[in-house]
């Protein structure tokens, strides 16, 4: 287990099918034959992240924090405990920290070393979050990154970039947009986008919201 066999590497890349569909089908078939996987369990995991878990979970947390000042305080003080209240912790998101955007502070979440992301709250990460352009530039040049997402920040705004190097997962609490004072918690949640909880977008007012 502890040993590495460098020769396996070239072996692997050079000898397995070059088409990823064939390669992964072959792996699945062998594991099935060996009893190392149950296909129904594969389906159950897929179904969980394709339908049950996604940014709507994080949006619920954000909306709750917007309408309930005491919850907001608990959320910022101990993200895991406050999210556990809503029964939204889970794998790749047991140790949660929530960071709050304000008029003078903008937060941005990245994982430069791989693609760590708060699955229970946001689902599986989008392709760009896992990409080299985002991972390489978010820590060094967050303003150019944000510009590519259409977010232009004043030079006065302090940017805080959170590089997810451990098992702590970060969620951005976006600013509540103006004109939403009378909206219900459920309607507010529908305004909150995935990118706003990563920090690559703001939450727009209801009329101008884009998906």
């Amino acid at each position, binding site marked *: 287990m502890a040993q590495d066999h460098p020769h396996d590497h070239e072996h692997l890349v050079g000898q397995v099918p070059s088409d990823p569909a064939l390669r992964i089908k072959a792996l699945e078939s*062998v594991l099935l034959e060996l009893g190392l996987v149950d296909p129904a369990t594969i389906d159950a*995991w897929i179904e969980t992240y394709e339908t049950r878990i996604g940014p709507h979970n994080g949006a619920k947390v954000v909306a709750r924090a917007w309408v309930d000042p005491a919850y907001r305080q608990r959320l910022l003080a101990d993200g895991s405990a406050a999210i556990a209240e809503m029964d939204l912790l889970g794998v790749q998101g047991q140790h949660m920290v929530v960071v709050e955007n304000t008029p003078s502070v903008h937060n941005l979440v990245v994982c430069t070393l791989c693609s760590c992301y708060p699955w229970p709250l946001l689902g599986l990460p989008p392709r760009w979050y896992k990409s*080299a352009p985002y991972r390489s530039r978010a820590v060094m040049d967050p303003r150019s990154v944000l510009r590519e997402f259409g977010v232009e920040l004043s030079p006065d705004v302090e*940017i805080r970039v959170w590089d997810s190097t451990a098992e702590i997962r970060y969620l951005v609490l976006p600013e509540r947009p103006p004109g939403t004072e009378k909206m219900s918690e459920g309607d507010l949640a529908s305004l909150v986008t995935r990118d706003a909880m990563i920090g690559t977008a703001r939450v727009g007012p209801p009329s101008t919201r884009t998906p």
Partner: protein
Amino acid sequence: MNGIHDMGGMHGFGPIAPEPGEAVFHETWERRMFGLRRAMTSPPGFSIDRFRFLRETMPPAIYLTWSYYEHWYFATALSLLQAGMITIDELRTGRAAAGRPKRNDAMRPADVDHAMRAGGKFARAVNTPPRFSLGQAVAARNLNPTGHTRLPRYARGKRGLIHHWHGGHVFPDSSARGGGECPQHLYTVMFSARELWGGDAAPNDKVYLDLWESYLDPT
């Protein structure tokens, strides 16, 4: 290891390409690889840290060419090869060799919800008191191990302040090599962008990293 995965602070990868209305999976095989990884029986001693480390050992040109779930394939297949649980012929042909015993202990569908809710907890008790206190000035060590580490190159040798103490957490550098969890105190350390990137960075910008105690020195 100072691998191609350690990308923070690199130029040259081009524009970010957000995809409006992106689906959770782009290809059927991505969906299968995801489900397979979550559902399968891993080799003894396997961990998320081992999984990450194996991805890091991909030949760099392959790392940059293969997409995310192909990285998962690589690390999964390599872990099984290294444990002797699969052969290269089986990976190539998709057929188990004749006479291989069949196990009967794989995760069941009914286990998924619990695994999703309860899995992935890495906080551990550490018997020693934390070495650093909130607000303390620290420097990230200049470590260049050939094994797995979660101290990115861009932070090494740089000075920051202890922003938060998370208690004890599994130490990935050990866990990734099968050396046990060896938990250590984990801290969030705040670095100014100028400390990391020099005088052209915005004066107020910050970068926060989660760093284990043995990555840090007092200054």
